């Protein structure tokens, strides 16, 4: 299945999806050392995002999310690509500055159509999300 979306940050990537129906902050939610969700009591606490296609609602939190994204990327612990419903400037700046492919404003509800574990391809330049299933 293909879903059209809007490019936030250029590039193409693919991987297994992790779907989270909530907002995300690179700083605080994600450990740049392990690539796992580290926020205490987070619903995904302990879940790795390394080389995953991370699907969530929008960005949140500190303006330091961009340097946290940079650190995760440098350590090889960043998500492969990002899909969100509607980006915001800190998240967009973070993925543009660190070169993580990202799209937002998908034409269909990705939080329902994509399941955690699905294999997903993101072509941000073309604005296309491809769901390949398990």
């Amino acid at each position, binding site marked *: 299945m293909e879903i059209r979306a809007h490019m936030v940050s250029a590039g193409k990537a693919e991987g297994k999806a992790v779907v989270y129906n909530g907002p995300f902050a690179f700083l605080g*939610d994600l450990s740049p050392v392990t690539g796992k969700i580290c926020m*205490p009591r987070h619903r995904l606490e302990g879940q790795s995002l390394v080389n995953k296609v991370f699907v969530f609602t929008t960005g949140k*939190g500190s303006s*330091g999310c961009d*340097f946290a994204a940079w650190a995760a990327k440098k350590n090889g612990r960043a998500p492969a690509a990002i899909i969100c419903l509607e980006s915001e400037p800190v998240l*967009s700046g973070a993925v543009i*500055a660190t070169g993580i492919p990202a799209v937002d404003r998908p034409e269909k509800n990705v939080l329902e159509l994509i399941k955690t574990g699905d294999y997903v391809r993101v072509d941000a330049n073309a604005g296309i999300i491809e769901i390949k299933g398990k």
Partner: protein
Amino acid sequence: MLLTDEEKRMLDGEYCPGIQRSMDLLVKLGESFDAEKLVPISYGHIGYDFCPEPFWDKMTEGVPQTPHRVTTHPSYSPEIWKKCGLPLADNWIGEHERKLKRFKELGWLRTETCAEYLLGIFPRKGDIVPMGGSCMQVANNSLFGAKVDRMGILVSLAAAVCGRTPLMGLLIPENRYASHLVELDDLDVSDWTMSEYHCLGYYIGDQVPGFKPVAVNGLPPNLPFDFARALVISMPTSGAVTLAHIVGTTPEASTLEAAQGKRKLENVIKVGKREMSETWERLNVWDDDTVEHVAFGCPHSTIDEIGRIVTLLEGKKVKTTLLIGASTPVEALARRQGWADIIEKAGGIFLPACPSIANPFTRADIAGEKQAKSAATNSARSAHYIASVGGIKVFFGTEEECVNAAISGKWKGEMPKWK
């Protein structure tokens, strides 16, 4: 995006690689939000120590002194960390010194605080001020009526280098009206301290999707500065709120009608005793009552906050490490007042650094085996980041409870009796 001839030259690399790369980042960001053009800035605020060194070097490569003022967020203080006996302080000296040298060459100001409005450096209503630091953004937007869009630390450096920022988001007047309204539901705030306002802001931030402007209705008019600031700065911690109107207090919200304009409300958020209790509970992440560190000054302490801490601490000795994050000028005032002496005699220290994300006592990569395993704070923002970035236990409570914890080394904080 429409660029002027000068901006095209900047983007084409006619000046230097730093300006070219910074311009490229601003243009890409602006285009992803359909910004029509770039606009000149009144001044900029960055965070040099928070920028990864390769990024800092690339964005400032060849950049001459800027004609506009640029200030900075709290920096690292590895020399002071060393004096505090923190084993890994040396690891941080080289990078800090290299970046600081470049920062000074650029002619930028070493304000080194997340609360530089306390130094007399604050925007006038309508000034366009790109800033790193979500607490700076929300405070300058909300409390002074500046035009500050939400942006990251890296993008704020690009804006400071170029003296421009994309015309988008909260720079556009109609986007500044509240789309979300917060109503207090049977909550008596008459005996609230700063911590209760932190807690309220943390709850609100979590309830508002994206960075939609919020109006908070039902608080006493002309709320004291410390309370208003605590309320707004907690919101972009649990969420992304970058402009919060406090009806009857902040400059764009003399009335609810003024804050809302003709914008249609998307949601009304009711906050009552249950929401406050649950949030207070959520900010406390601990099992046993041993407190090893106490952090004040997130955001950097006002002189009034320092005065209140001094009253509670005078003549006592602390068992924990006690850090007060404050800018150097505010610390100087506290020193002149005789207050710094009282805090230092009790065993506390001042640091012009971030007591939360970059708190040296709670970070394993600075304190090594001396890392505190638990910390108490009166700030929701601090509690959030000490728990997640430091990865240690956190106690959240009032100023008085935190000072008592520093003196006894034990947490005796209690849930406020909501009225």
